[in-house]
C-alpha cells in the first residue's frame, strides 16, 4: 500500500509541477489544484498508513492518528478557497490584459503560431 500511495503522490506532484511551469493561467491553476491534492495525501500519510484503524479510542483494535486528518481537513478548506480565488483572478486577468498568459503578454513565438493558425 505504501508503494502505491507514494507513487500516486509522486505522479500528482510531477504533473502539478509541470503544469505550474506552463505559460497560460488555466494550466497553472490546474497545476496548483493537482499539487494541493498531492499535498493533502502527503499530509494524510504523515500519521502513518493503517488498515481498519479508527481515529477514535475504543472503536477498533488499532488506532489511527487523528491529528493529520484534522490538518488535511483544514488544508482542504484553505486550498479550496485559494483555488477559487486563483480562478477568479485569472479570469479577471484574461479580461483586463486581453490574454491568458501569466506575464500578461504572450511571447512573440506564440503570437506567430496563433496568426499562422488563423491564416490556415
Amino acid at each position, binding site marked *: 500500500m505504501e508503494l502505491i500511495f507514494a507513487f500516486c503522490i509522486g505522479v500528482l506532484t510531477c504533473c502539478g509541477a509541470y503544469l505550474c511551469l506552463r505559460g497560460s493561467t488555466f494550466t497553472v491553476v490546474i497545476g496548483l489544484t493537482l499539487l*494541493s491534492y498531492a499535498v493533502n495525501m502527503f*499530509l494524510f500519510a504523515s500519521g502513518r498508513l493503517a488498515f481498519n484503524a479508527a481515529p477514535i479510542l475504543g472503536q477498533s483494535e488499532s488506532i489511527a492518528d487523528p491529528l493529520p486528518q484534522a490538518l488535511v481537513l*483544514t488544508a482542504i478548506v484553505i486550498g479550496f478557497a*485559494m483555488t477559487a*480565488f*486563483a480562478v477568479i483572478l485569472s479570469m479577471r*486577468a484574461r479580461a*483586463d490584459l486581453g490574454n491568458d498568459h*501569466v506575464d500578461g503578454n504572450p511571447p512573440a513565438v506564440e503570437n506567430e503560431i496563433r496568426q499562422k493558425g488563423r491564416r490556415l
Partner: protein
Amino acid sequence: MNHLAILPILLPALSGILMLLPPLATRPCAQRRIAWMGLAALVVISGVLIYLVEYETQIYVLGDWQPPFGIMLLVDRLAALLLAATAVLAFCACLYGEARKDRPGHFFYPLFMFQIMGINGAFLTGDIFNLFVFFEVLLIASYALLVHGGGKEKTRAGFQYVTLNLLGSAFFLIALGTLYGTLGTLNMADMAAKVTGLSPEEQAIARAGGLLLLLVFGLKSAMLPLQFWLPQTYSAASAPVAALFAIMTKVGLYAIYRVFGGIFGSEAGALAHIATPWIWPLAIATLVVGACGAFAAPSLRLLTANMVIASVGTLLLTFVINDGQSLSAGLFYLLHSTAVTGSLFLIADQIRIQRGPAQDRFVISRPMHKSGRTGSFFFIAAIAAIGLPPLSGFVAKALFLQAATRLDEQLWVWPVLLISSLIALVAFSRAGSSFFWHVAGKKKAGVKTRPAQVLAISILLTIPLLMTLFADPIVTYSQRAAEDIKNSTVIIQQRLENDRRTAHAVR
C-alpha cells in the same frame, strides 16, 4: 492566564466582521472610524503587552486544552515588539489611506483588518500549523488588498503573487507533514525538545523538512532566488497597502527566527543550525541584488521595493553572523527598516499625486505644490534608509558592523554592507535631485495633499528619530527579545513537563 494575549487577533477579526454587517457594509465613513479606533486600541494593547512580558512570558492556552495537543499562543518580548511595530505601522497606513479623496471600495477596511489579524496571529502563535493558518489568513487578505482598486498592473502583479504564494503554501504543508511524521508534534517548543532524540535516519528526513521550511519562509521574506515577485508587487499596490506590506517580509523573517533559532537552534544536537550554511551566501547575495535593484530602479516605488529586499538581506545576515549572538542588532534594524520603508512608500505616493503625469518616475516634470515639505520628508526618510548619521539607520548599521567579530565574517560583511549603503546613497541622491531640483516651468502640477496624509508620514518619520534618542533602552530590550527565542522555548518545555507529571500523578 491573561486574556490580553489573544486580543491582537480577536480585535481586528471582530472589527472586520462588524464592518461587513449590513448597517456598516455600505458606509465607508463608519468603517473608517471603526478601523481607526480598532487600530488605536491595538497600539495601546501592544504597549500593555510589552509592559506585561517584562514580568512574565505570557502563554495563552486556547480553551484550556493543554499543549502540545491544544493550541497555544506565546507572547514573549520578541512577539510583543513585532506586534507593536505592526500596530503603529498599520495605524499610520490606515490614517494615510483614509485621507484619499477617491473613495476606496467597500471592503478595503475589512480586508485591512483581516490582514492585520493574520500578521498578529503569525507573530503570536506557538504552534507551527497555526503559523500556516495565519499565513494563509494574511495572504488571502493581501491578495485582495493588492488587486483592490483594479487596473492592469495590479492584476498582472496579483496573479503572479498569488501563484507563487500558493506554491509556497503547498511546500509549507509538505514540510509540516514531514516534520510531524518524524517528530510527532506541531508545538514549536515541543518540536525543539524532540528534535534532539531522533535516530540518524529520522534526522535526515527532519533536515529535509526543516530546509523546506527555509524555502517557504525565504519566499515570504524575499530571500535571493525567491525575491523576484517583490518589486513589481509592492510597486503595483496602492500606497497604504504597500506601507502595510513593509511588515509582511518581516513575518517570514520572524518565522525563520522562531524555527531556525528555536527548533533547529544551538540545542538541536546534530540538526543545530541546519540553515546557517544556506543563509550565509543567500543573505549576502540578497543584499547585493537589492542594492543593485535600487540603483537601477526607474521610479521611487521600485527603489523602495528594492530597499526592502536589501533590508531583508541585512536582517538575514544578522541572524547568522557571530553564531546568532548578534540578533539584537537585527531586531533594532527590523523596527527601523519597517518604519522607514513604510514611510517611503507613503512619500512616493505623495510625490506621485503631486507630480501629475510624471508620477514618481525619475524624469523632469513640473514642480510640486508643497515641494518644500515633501522634500524634507524625503530627505529625512532617505537619510534613515541609507544609514547616515544622525538617524537610527546609522545606529543600526554601526551595531551591525560591531556585531561581526571574527575576521572572516568582517571580510564578508563589512564591504558588502558599506558598499550597498554607498549605492543606496547614490540612488537616493539621484531620486531626490530629479524630484526636487530638475523641474521645468513654474506652473504647479498635480493635486494637493491632505493633512491626514502628512500626519501619517510625520508619525512614521518620528520613529527613526525616537529610535536614535532612545537607542540604548531599545537595544537593551531587543537583546533580551533575541534571547527570548531560546528562553521562551525552555519555559514552555518546562511547563509541558510539569503538565505531564501532574497528569501522571492524577492517574
